[in-house]
């Protein structure tokens, strides 16, 4: 499947999901989701030929994730998946099987983050867990980097 067709597929599913959920929820600010969806679609179309469009797609998708997450956390997760699909497609990650596996892995991690948030009553605890996890990963990376440089970068 060509990348452009895959892009349309992701965006089609995203649009259908957002419109459906907005209609089902009966939110008083229903128009906000539609405006943000149109904004995301417009930006995605306008920058389709840009080399570094992944960054702008992420920035355009975040308001839609927040708006849909405010209706229902799992709707937010659904939007995250779709936006991630479009971004991965823009980065040509879905061209090879390794990239598809990474996309699926990210979807799983997003779901775990959502579960963590759902089981918490307040923001503080999951925020601390996320920060601690990030810190731990970065600390491990620093040590690995040091060992790596010692192995290849050290002059004899």
């Amino acid at each position: 499947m060509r990348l452009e067709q895959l892009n349309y597929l992701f965006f089609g599913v995203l649009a259908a999901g957002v419109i459906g959920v907005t209609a089902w929820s009966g939110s008083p600010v229903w128009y906000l989701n539609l405006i943000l969806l149109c904004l995301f679609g417009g930006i995605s179309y306008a920058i389709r030929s840009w080399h570094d469009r992944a960054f702008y797609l992420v920035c355009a998708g975040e308001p839609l994730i927040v708006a849909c997450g405010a209706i229902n956390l799992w709707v937010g997760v659904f939007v995250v998946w779709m936006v991630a699909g479009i971004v991965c497609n823009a980065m040509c990650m879905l061209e090879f099987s390794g990239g598809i596996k990474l996309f699926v892995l990210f979807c799983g991690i997003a779901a775990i983050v959502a579960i963590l948030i759902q089981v918490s009553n307040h923001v503080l605890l999951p925020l601390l867990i996320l920060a601690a996890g990030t810190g731990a990963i970065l600390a491990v990376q620093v040590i690995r980097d040091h060992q790596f440089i010692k192995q290849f970068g050290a002059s004899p």
Partner: protein
Amino acid sequence: MRRCAQGLSLVIIVLASCAYILDDMALLLAAGTLLAALLGQYLLFDYRFRCIVTSVAVQRSLERSQVRKGTTLRVATTVTLTVPPTMHAQITERLSPQVFIQDGDTTLSVEPYLNPSTCQFRYRITPVVHGKMRFSGITLSVQNTFFSHAIDLLADPFSGPDLLIQPVGLFEPYGKRSTTESREVEKLKVVSGFGIRALREYYAGDDLRRIDWKLSAKHNKLYVREYTGMISLPPLLIIDLPWRTEPCSDADLDRMASAVAGQAEHAIRSYQYVSLLIISGANILFFSSEEKDLQRCMSVLREWMHPVERVVHQYHSRDRADIREDVRHLETIIMQGGEPGCIAFSGTLRKQYISMIMHMQTPAFTGQIARTLSSVAIDECYLFSLGCGDESHIRQIIRQAKIAKIVIHIRLPGALAALVDSADRIYRTADTVEAFA
């Protein structure tokens, strides 16, 4: 971290701060997933970066393993590496400050089109500090959309070989000494001269009297002097006579005749004989090998020193080496890119030149000169010419002399010699271009 990743980090901090202040789960979801995505990208980049580094293989070859300070040396480095898709790599050769890069590329970009990719650096260096120099390795820079990272690869597989740079005598006076029958040359000969042509490390068996004690004390290593050789071969005098129908100055011709006579007399008095070659354009008129009689030599000069008729003409034909140089220059223009019209013109010109080279035949004069030069024992020759009209035969003589490792001195009329510059295609390869007195 590149600007994209920095921007996303800022977005994550803003979202997380807003989530904390407003206690909003949707904002936290956005921040958390974005953080996970960015971390994932970082880990993926790091994994690929390590794969690239482990795939790097460096092979470096030097023209020579030891050179004298100031000598230009050609280096070829072949780097093989595997660059995954969506990544870009740049390799830079790390060179010691002991050397000066003369020409060539020391930085190359590698795109992930061919895996494994092989790229080659070709450059020339001139060592400016003596001692042992090791090629320290390469710097590898890798980047994708979000991250970039560079590492200096200095370990054993990426570094080496060693280059030994021998010192040269800095305070040696310029110019070669000469005695009545011999003169110094920059070559090893059985008879040593007085000048120092090189300094090198001491090897077992070297004459202890040749050790340079000052230099050895300075570097804590024994260095010996290599003296110049002495040679007693007279020069070959080539006299290029003007064409009869070509306008030339009589005064210049007289000056050239007296300069040739003076040089011939000096050669016979110093070395007991002289060889004379009289030409006019691409016509060899007279050759006298090892003439010992000064009177006979002078009578030959009196007989020939006037404008003559030329049977063979070269019509300003270009040298094959010059055309090859032009082809290389045009290829550089095409590779560098630029205006389409300019590239198309260069391409057409290149094709024409290549076709010229393919159909070019070696002139008979070139062969005659090569045979003449090989038949006499000489190590230098003087070419006297008025430099008027077609000069293509002079280029051929210089080239044949260079091939035979003969030092060639060109002597021209004063006004013409002053106009000759280092970019002159005919005379630039000659060892000296001076006016005849």
